[in-house]
């Protein structure tokens, strides 16, 4: 996956290196600019069994800052923010690969280095007894829950 460049961002940023479960690395440039998910909007996406994005809805495109063409074909971890504890994603994969639903509060990284908080639900798509992919729906979280996560996540 492409490293982020200063031209991708607006304003001050800090540089972080992300190391993903598949061993790949990505340089990301993060800013403090938060984008709020609008009331009534849901972010919907689907991936193949390896977590590669196959479908996104308009709200996903709007919130991530990427175009649909830039998202489809990329691993879902294109949205990974360095403030998210690795343990959360390990739990996500262990849970969904067992064929069960996962829920959690997630801070996602935008294309421009900013971020947005969501309450995410990921469900395995079971077809003929096999996992054919995953569907993820992300909705606007209560602010109180976000503040709790901001306190807790650095210690996980």
């Amino acid at each position, binding site marked *: 996956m492409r490293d982020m460049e200063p031209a991708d961002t607006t304003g001050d940023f800090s540089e972080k290196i992300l190391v993903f479960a598949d061993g790949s690395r990505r340089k990301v440039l993060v800013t403090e600019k938060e984008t709020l998910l*609008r*009331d009534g909007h*849901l972010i*919907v996406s689907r991936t193949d069994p390896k977590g590669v994005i196959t479908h996104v*809805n308009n709200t996903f495109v709007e919130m991530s800052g990427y175009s649909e063409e830039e998202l489809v074909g990329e691993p879902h971890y294109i949205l990974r923010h360095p403030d998210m504890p690795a343990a959360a994603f390990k739990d996500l994969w262990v849970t969904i690969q067992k064929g069960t639903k996962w829920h959690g509060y997630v801070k996602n990284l935008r294309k421009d280095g900013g971020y947005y908080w969501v309450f995410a639900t990921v469900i395995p798509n079971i077809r003929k007894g096999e996992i054919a992919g995953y*569907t993820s729906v992300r909705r606007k979280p*209560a602010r109180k829950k976000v503040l709790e996560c901001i306190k807790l996540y650095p210690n996980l």
Partner: protein
Amino acid sequence: MSDISYQMTVSPDFTPDHISGWFIFNTWLQKTLGVGIHLELYDNFSSQRKAIVEDEIDLIYANPYDASMLVRERGFLPVVRPSKFSDEAIIVVNKDHQAQQIEDLPIGISIAATEDPDVNLICEIMLEPAELNVRNTKKITISSYPLVAKALIQNKADVGFFLHDAYNSLSNLTKRELRPLVSSEIQVIHHVLMVGPRMTTIKDRLQEVLIGMAEKPRGAGVLKAMNFAAWEAMDGEEMEFMIDLMDTLSYQPE
């Protein structure tokens, strides 16, 4: 015409303005397919659910919530969906209510709602940013959307849950007394026309005539009476995707 007769029904969330459209559609369908179909409209979700459980229904225009149950529990198959048409919901308050946004709503509010399961689900999700849920609100179940509006106007409830189209079909006089607080933008869930086990033998033919309906002068007129532009095919995988979506939406955070 074949001796076999089928029974069709429509999710009780249809707008009253389009009841006649469904009867016209049924007549058109019988003539085009050469089969007998009786249209039975139910006043509420529980009486329709009873008819489904008693295997009385062969063809149904189902809301997304019931569509999941019909596939999983009753062996129904998707045929078509209305083109460029998604199910959206809206939360409404009395025009003088103090809340200007969802987060202004306090714990303990009363909610006027119909039994419409997908509208209730979508609206409950839209209340989550205010940490409101079924445990800390009081729901008043009402038989129709006009009566939900009446409950708000009479200040018998703080908020009302509406199917977007049902809210839009209220009179201007009624809407002047109300104020939308938030509308959904989900884009990916919608009603679906489905056949039950007795009707699967003619599913392919039914799908073919419905997809071509908008191209035929009489068909286009019937669609207009139902407020649809056209039908488009819905396959099993699209249906499974919508079932997965409804499953993700049915979870409420603690």
